[in-house]
């Protein structure tokens, strides 16, 4: 018999109190709390998810229905001057082993912009702990209200691999500009920042050393050149048509923790992640696609103990393939449906993973190197401040599953596919 996982923990109790406080703060009619003539605004959201899988685990013990999927944020935005906005978000997030940071200062940024030429051109600068502008959804990925489905396409927005903290915000600054001409709108952002790649699974992801039984985790610190990022977009008719190009470039030096130097020497990882995005929005339906690849280039790290990993040609230089195609249909303004096909190939020259599996000496089965996710979902905003969303996923391949939650992924018995139902209830003000 299956049981629902309801382990009482302090973090959960704190989050429930936080959630109740949000509800009390906010009468149903309000969309935000406003103070000082609207110069100070407070926003919040609280979302609780439930996840069920037939094989493997996603966000906790999902084979027994996991409730380890909780996202709550409180945002304050202050307009000190008409064009100077300071905003910060406190966030509590729990997605099982994929996010164990709990409560955090998610972003805290100051933004100053100057309109020029009768406001058709706007130039601006933003600094602090800034949100990372990447693709169509990264900037606001914690809020189910801004997501097409409960879970974003995992080929591009990695939530299960514990990379969310490293992907969502970084400490630094950016310059941006946008230009409007008739029905056409162009914009660009350029960012240089210190990524939060010491969090979650980011270090393991960048060093490329998998977390395997019998090997210590690749703990150490990453430093070196700041992350560089660029994003450019074109919008037609107020966003009816959207084209976007984003690119992240990382060049990070890894210094192994002293106790681990027998396993991992210092090394360097270079990663480039370009992403092309397109969207068309009609009155009743939207069509969206994003395509990108992660190109990684590693040197160093080598010791006798890990020579078998470093010996793999794909470990040193590898290029993935990441894309999805998605259709949304709005039956009513409150009730939407989504259908999506989402594909991740860890090596685009070996889409079936057979060569990668062979190179690992059979330590990793072929299905560890790809994931093809067919998703059907619905979202229903049954009251102004409440949203209920649910997705069904059929996933062939285990490439984006978390190894901490699924330690047996590489065993010969591990299923190459799984089904998942994930549901989320959210309140916002």
């Amino acid at each position, binding site marked *: 018999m299956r049981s629902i996982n309801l382990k009482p923990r302090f973090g959960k109790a704190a989050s429930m109190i936080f959630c109740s406080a949000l509800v009390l703060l906010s009468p149903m009619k309000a969309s935000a709390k406003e103070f000082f003539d609207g110069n100070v605004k407070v926003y919040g*959201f609280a979302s609780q998810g439930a996840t069920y899988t037939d094989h493997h685990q996603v966000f906790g013990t999902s084979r027994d229905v996991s409730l380890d999927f909780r996202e709550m944020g409180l945002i304050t935005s202050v307009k000190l001057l008409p064009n100077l906005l300071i905003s910060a978000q406190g966030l509590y997030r729990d997605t099982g082993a994929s996010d164990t940071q709990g409560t955090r200062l998610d972003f805290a940024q100051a933004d100053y912009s100057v309109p020029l030429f009768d406001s058709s051109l706007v130039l601006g600068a933003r600094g602090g702990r800034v949100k990372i502008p990447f693709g169509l959804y990264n900037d606001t990925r914690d809020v189910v209200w801004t997501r097409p489905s409960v879970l974003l396409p995992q080929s591009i927005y990695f939530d299960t691999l514990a990379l969310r903290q490293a992907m969502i915000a970084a400490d630094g600054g950016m310059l941006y500009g946008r230009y409007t001409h008739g029905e056409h709108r162009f914009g660009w952002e350029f960012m240089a920042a210190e990524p939060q790649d010491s969090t979650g699974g980011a270090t393991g992801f960048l060093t490329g050393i998998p977390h395997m039984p019998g090997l210590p985790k690749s703990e150490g610190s990453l430093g070196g050149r700041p992350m560089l990022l660029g994003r450019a977009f074109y919008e037609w008719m107020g966003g009816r048509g959207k084209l976007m190009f984003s690119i992240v470039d990382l060049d990070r030096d890894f210094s192994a923790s002293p106790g681990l130097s027998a396993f991992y020497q210092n090394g360097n990882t270079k990663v480039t992640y370009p992403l092309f995005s397109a969207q068309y929005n009609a009155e009743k339906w939207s069509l969206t696609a994003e395509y990108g690849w992660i190109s990684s280039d590693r040197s160093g790290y080598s010791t006798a103990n890990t020579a078998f990993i470093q010996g793999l040609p794909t470990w040193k230089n590898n290029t993935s393939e990441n894309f999805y195609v998605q259709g949304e249909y709005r039956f009513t303004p409150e009730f939407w449906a989504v259908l999506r096909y989402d594909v991740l190939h860890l090596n685009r020259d070996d889409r079936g993973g057979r060569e990668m599996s062979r190179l690992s000496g059979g330590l990793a089965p072929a299905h560890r190197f790809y994931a093809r996710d067919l998703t059907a979902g619905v979202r229903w905003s049954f009251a102004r401040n409440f949203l209920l969303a649910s997705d069904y996923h059929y996933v062939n391949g285990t490439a984006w599953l978390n190894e901490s939650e699924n330690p047996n992924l590489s065993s010969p018995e591990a299923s190459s596919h799984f089904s998942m139902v994930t549901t989320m209830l959210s309140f916002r003000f």
Partner: protein
Amino acid sequence: MAISLASLTAQADDAKVRLLDSSGNTKQLPVETVREIFFMRLSSWPDGSPIRVFVLPDDHPLHIRFAKEILGVYPFQLRSAWDRLVFSGTGVSPTLVESVEEMRSRVESTPGAIGYTDKQ
């Protein structure tokens, strides 16, 4: 009774939606500037004073017609753009009013305000 209700509805449908502002200066604005203002991407008037934007709820018939007829967009596009600004901390949402009467009184009493109403 049925006839009078029907004619009232028809009358309401015929009413033109128009911009409303506290200074009467918005008539000269090109539509792309009005769109940028209601998408909350411009925060100051040319003289540097703050722009205060007022909107009706997403499902209000006048809001739907304002979005489609004046801005040339669908209400879900506005909501999506505001949510992206709010939850990325890069902007704020407009101030929500619950009725056309409240819209008129808030816009008239707030310096630098802009909203919309039905032409009578």
